[in-house]
Every structure is written in C-alpha cells, then in structure tokens.
C-alpha cells in the first residue's frame, strides 16, 4: 500500500514537474536568450549566434548617447529610491505597530500607486506637471518615481517589522527610551537586511520604469528605459541586445543580493538565543 501510493505520487509528481519545468523555461527564456544574442555580431541577431564578438558592447560603450542616459537613470533611480526610503520606512513601521483613527484611509493612500493603472497616473502627472512647469525636470521625475516605489517599501518594511519581536521594543520603552530612540536604535538595526533589499528593489523599480518617464521626461531628462522604448519602437537597432543584457544582469544581481540578504537574516534569527530570553523575561513581567 505504501509502495503503491508513493508510486502514484511519483507519477503525478512527474507530470507537475514536467509542466512546471516548461513554464519556468517560458518565464526565464526571454530574459536569458538575449544574453548570448548580444555577443553575436552586428549584422544579424540570431540565437545561437554564428560568430561571437563584443561588437554590440563596443557600440554601446562607444555611444555617448547611451552612456549619458544610463548615467542619468542611475542618478535618478538613486535619488528616487532614497527619497522613497526616507518617507516610506517610518510609515511602514507605524502602520505595522499602531492603530489610529484614519489608518484605513492612510493605507489606501499609501498603496494607491499599486491600485491605479500606471498610465492613468502618468497622464495625471503630465497634466499636473504642465501646470507646475515640472515637465522635463529631474526633480519632477524623481518625486514621481519615489511616489511609485512607496507602496512597495511600506509593505516590505511593515512585513519586516511584524516579523520582529515586539517585546524588545517594549523593553526599550520600559528602560526609558523615547519613541524616536526605539525606532532608530532598536527597530532600524534589526531591519537592516529588509531595508537593503527594499532599497535595492526600489532602485530597480525606478531604473526600469518606462511609462511615467515616457510621459513626463523631456529631451534633457530622457532615461534609459525611455530611450530603449523609442528605440525598440522606431528603429530596433542591434545595440539594444547589449543594453537588454546589461539590464538583465542588473536584475539578476539585485535578485541574488535580496535572496542572500534574506537567507542571512533567517540564519541570524535562528542563532539568536538572547532574543528569546529577552522576550521571555518581558513576557513574564507583563503577565505578572
């Protein structure tokens, strides 16, 4: 009987694994196929390439245009993700730990950018920025991208805070720490891995964002995705294969870094007997 059920489980397992493998390939294929193609030659973009060369990368690094927009995108993404972190991390903490009147409205407000179609937000920003003369300015784009990354950081921070031991914060309060000290010296240090990965993803979010940027940037603020979008739409030049590969590499790095941080955080949480002692102590105190 056991052998029979395990055999059945085995056969069914293979169907699921087979289908899932096909789907993993379907998902990963477009991100990965462009890598070998980008090392082919200029004349024809094929997979697998007939001859390998660095021509397309020479084109990319030889083009002042592409380098300028890349550098610009890096700067804007760094500014936007920093602004978003400064604004969203405290909010994530408070939303995870407190109740207050109007909390539901604030949650709706903060998660709004995830709910509204991005093209609607983009048109709104376009019309609004026209009035404020912010079209084509760096500050306009940075603020817009910070807004767009906020829900993601709030959710990540709130989830991180919820996984922390609240007793530690109570102990700190009992020991006489005020609220800002609890936040900066008890909560934030424990959240470092969460915050780094939230920051990385916020950076990537802005670095890859195309629709908002398409609507509100001007010639002097064109970002890499905007240039890429119009280049795919109007000319499809082969150098795009190199650009796409570089973007894929950035995504892979960010994903792996976030994964490593998460694993490190899990390991650290396992190896922390002192935390359970602290929480146990506080628990008995509060129940007494």
């Amino acid at each position, binding site marked *: 009987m056991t052998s029979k059920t395990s055999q059945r489980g085995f056969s069914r397992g293979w169907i699921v694994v087979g289908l*899932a493998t096909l789907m993993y390939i379907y*998902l990963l294929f477009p991100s990965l196929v462009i890598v070998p*193609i980008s090392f082919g030659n200029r004349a024809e973009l094929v997979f697998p390439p007939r001859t390998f060369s660095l021509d397309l990368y020479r084109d990319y690094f030889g083009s002042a245009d592409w380098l300028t927009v890349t550098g610009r995108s890096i700067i804007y993404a760094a500014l936007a993700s920093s602004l978003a972190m400064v604004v969203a991390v405290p909010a994530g*903490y408070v939303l995870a730990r407190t109740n207050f009147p109007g909390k539901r409205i604030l949650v709706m407000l903060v998660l*709004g950018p995830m709910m509204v*179609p991005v*093209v609607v937000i983009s048109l709104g920003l376009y019309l609004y920025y026209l009035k404020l003369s912010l079209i084509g300015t760096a500050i306009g784009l940075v603020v817009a991208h910070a807004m767009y990354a906020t829900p993601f950081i709030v959710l990540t921070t709130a989830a991180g805070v919820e996984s922390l031991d609240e007793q530690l914060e109570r102990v700190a309060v009992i020991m006489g720490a005020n609220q800002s000290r609890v936040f900066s010296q008890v909560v934030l240090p424990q959240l470092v891995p969460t915050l780094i990965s939230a920051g990385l993803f916020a950076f990537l979010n802005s670095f890859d964002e195309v629709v908002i940027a398409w609507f509100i940037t001007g010639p002097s603020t064109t970002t890499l995705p905007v240039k890429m979008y119009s280049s795919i739409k109007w000319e499809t030049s082969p150098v795009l294969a190199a650009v796409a590969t570089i973007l894929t590499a950035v*995504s892979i790095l960010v994903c*792996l870094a976030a994964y490593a941080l998460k694993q490190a955080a899990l390991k650290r949480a396992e190896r922390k007997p002192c935390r359970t002692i602290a929480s146990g102590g506080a628990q008995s105190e509060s129940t007494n």
Partner: protein
Amino acid sequence: MALQLSRRELTVYLLPVAALMVFALIAPLLMIFWRSLGETSVSLDAYIDLFKSRLFLRASLTSFEISISSAIVSTIFAYPIALHLSRLSDKWRPIFLIFVLLPFWTSILVKSYSFIVVLGDSGLVNNALVEFGLPKVPMIFNRIGVLVGMSSFQIPFVVFPLLSNLLAQDPNLRRMAAVMGAADVRIFWQITLPLSLPGLLAGVVMCLVMAMGSFVTPALLGGRQDMMVANLIDFYTREALDWASASAIAVVLFAVSATMLWVLSRVRRDSGLI
C-alpha cells in the same frame, strides 16, 4: 499593536509619506477628473464624444479581449508552477522561487525586445518551424505577440496568490483522499483545485486589472489593430493633443480598474470567511 504614539509623533512619521502621495498621486488624479469635465465650464462633452468615437469603442473592445484571454492563458500557465513550488520543501522553495522572481524583476522592455528577436520573421521559433518543414507563423506585431508578452509578465502575479493558497491547504485532506483510494487526478480535480479557487480568482482579477491598463506590451508587440486604451491615452495626449479626451479615457479606465479591485477585495474577504 501596543505602541502608543502621540499626535505629534504620528505626524512626524506619517506626514512626509502623506505629503508625497497627495502631491504626486492625488493631485494628478484630481487634475484628470477636472480636465475630463472641461476646463472652463463643467460639461460631460468629453465623455459623450468618447462613447460616440469608434476609435475608443474599438480600443475598449480590444482591451477587454486581450485582458480576458491573457488572464486565462496566464492562469493556466501559472498553475503548474504554483503547484510545483507548493510541493517543494522549505529548503528548495526559495531557490525555485528565484525562477519566478527574476522574470518578475526583469524590465518589460528587455522581455519585449527579446520576444521581437525570438518570435520575429527570422527568429528562433520561425527558423525551427522551417527546419521541421512547417510554414512560418507571424508571431509579433499581432495578437499572438501581445498574448505572449502579457502572459510572461503576468504569470508571477498569479503564482504568488495561488502559492499562498496552496500552501495553506491541509495536506491531510489529500492524504485522506489517497487512503480512501482516490486517484491523483481525482484528488486534484476534487480537492486541490476547488480549494484553490479563491487564490485563482485573486490571480485572475489581478491579471485583468494589470492587462486593462497595459501600455508597453501592446505598443511594442502588437499591431495597429491591437491598440489598447492606454495606447489611446498616449495618442490623444502626445499626438492629437486632445487632453479632454485623454482624461475622459483615463477616468473610465480608472473606474473599471477600481471596480475590479473592489470585486477582488470582496473575493479576498469572502474567502477568508470560509
């Protein structure tokens, strides 16, 4: 939830985020409403024109068609992945999750570009077809291209809710059914699948919402006849310079998405009660 903050502390923690949202989200949205109602005097002209416009009606129909078909395709494709992930051990699951997270975090431009290269007239897929003596199939700048691009973008969004649903299912139910002699196929159709319906529905609605507003995929992988409402907004804004029409379309799109999200929240709440 024990933390007590004074009014002043709440302000310090929450005012910056509220200010950012009001400035960069709420004000722009209000701007669209205002523009759609006519700038000088309040009128519904833009909406009346819209529902008389063949262009808009066709783009709406196309958007519904593409959204529904891409939601179906994405759900069918996502299910085996979620099922596979749910049966993995806690050690292996994060590793296989990377295969879903990486495409999730890959720029949609990268994916669109590589689909153009791979599915194009002399791309990998068509060359393989010729190799096997089959005729070439046009796969980009038409509906197939849009559906491929959409589904590759949406699958992760279905996998996540479905996975959390599958992980929450009690494995004893399946074990019990197996002990009672049910075949695996029957266990799937009568236990796993029905129990996963709330997660599935959440994924489908999420797909519909995202697809309705999608901009890049139809613009890059679709043909002229695949113009969706988002592309129409872009057209009215940048080429026709008709901001009232663009705003009216945006308001309609906003209302449709909000309705779908409301349905989704009801589904989530109802499924929580079961």
